[in-house]
């Protein structure tokens, strides 16, 4: 795993490790169900104290980010982080669309009817189109 820790930084190593694992999950480098290296492997790879890894893993487990299965290892939990970011993006799209509709002087009921109609139309469509933002 390409993690970069800086022992000389003012941030404790275990916190740096937590942040980097969370970042890996947010960017999709680590996905739900992926297994993290064992404490020993992680410590040897990063050249840090195994106690530091244990502390980071325990904190991540406490936060519900990973699950420690006794005997098997550490696994990434179903994470809400990617969904939250998506929702934030979607919200801004909706806001922009609403702004433009309002500038056309439509009433709230007219806007709602438009959206319901469009949703209905898409439901009955044979293939689903995927938009990239």
């Amino acid at each position, binding site marked *: 795993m390409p993690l970069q820790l800086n*022992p*000389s930084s003012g941030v404790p190593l275990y916190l740096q490790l937590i942040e980097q694992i969370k970042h890996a999950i947010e960017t999709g480098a680590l996905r739900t169900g992926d297994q993290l290296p064992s404490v*020993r492997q992680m410590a040897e790879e990063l*050249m840090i104290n*195994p106690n530091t890894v244990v502390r980071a893993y325990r904190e991540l487990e406490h936060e519900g980010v990973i699950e420690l299965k006794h005997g098997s290892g550490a696994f990434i939990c179903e994470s809400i982080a990617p969904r939250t970011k998506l929702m934030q993006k979607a919200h801004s799209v909706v806001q922009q669309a609403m702004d433009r509709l309002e500038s056309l002087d439509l009433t709230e009921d007219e806007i709602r009817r438009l959206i319901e109609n469009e949703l209905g139309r898409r439901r009955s469509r044979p293939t689903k189109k995927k938009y990239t933002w």
Partner: protein
Amino acid sequence: MVENIIEIHNLSRCFGSKNALKDVSLSVPRGTVFGLVGENGAGKSTLIKHILGLWRAEAGQVRVFGHDPVSNPVAVLERIGYLSEQPDLPDWMRVYEYMRYMQAFYPKWDVPYAESLRAQFGVDRNARVRVLSKGQRAKLGLLGAQAHRPDLLLLDEPSSGLDPIVRNDILTAVIRTVADEGRTVFFSSHLLEEIERVSDHVAMLHQGRLVLYGPLDRIKAQHRRITLRFETPQPKAPLIPGALSVNGAGREWTVICNRQRSQIQSLTMSFGTEIVGEDAASLNEVFIAHANA
């Protein structure tokens, strides 16, 4: 099973008129890495020799695995793996003879493991110790310290003057020791990057006294580097109560302090200065500040 592998209480020792150690107390919990720093001559090696039972405590008490290493050397030494700067190895022996020789001292010596270390380190089994390079001698010493899987790995500035590859081997030995449940490491070093990388606890000796002692993260969090800007340029380092060290010139001066942040902040109100920067101090800065304080 003891909770603290090493317990030192009020240890003092003089060499003639010189106070090598003054009232030193520390504990090393099982399964942790303890890093000891200090200038040359601060007393690090003297402290380690007390742990090995080479020196008897003149005042105070030393307990290793719950035993006094002076009165109970066998119980202590067979569980310790020791490596010092420029290890004292029998020059006339061949490497494989040295390995057999070490095996005789340690009931827990693991022959296949020792051989795998030798192969990994790339030390020729037939070479005489006297022809080995400095780095290879260090590796052989490390092999001897590790192969019996000691409960305590005791290292006295093991990385001094060695290339990064050997330093890596030493650090790996430290990590692997702790990764094996219940094993402990105590090492002294000048290489603060290594200390910061692997230590759970640190202590700093200065002229025989312990000036710092505690969990690494806590010590680093407590030491702050604060940059002050003065209204008028200062001709020399201003006296700032609560500061461990003051460096700079003219209007801007940088202070290293230990938990005195609020004291320094309240002082700036009266001195006509403002705080223009603040950050966690690096271990290097902490070390220098305490050494010069």
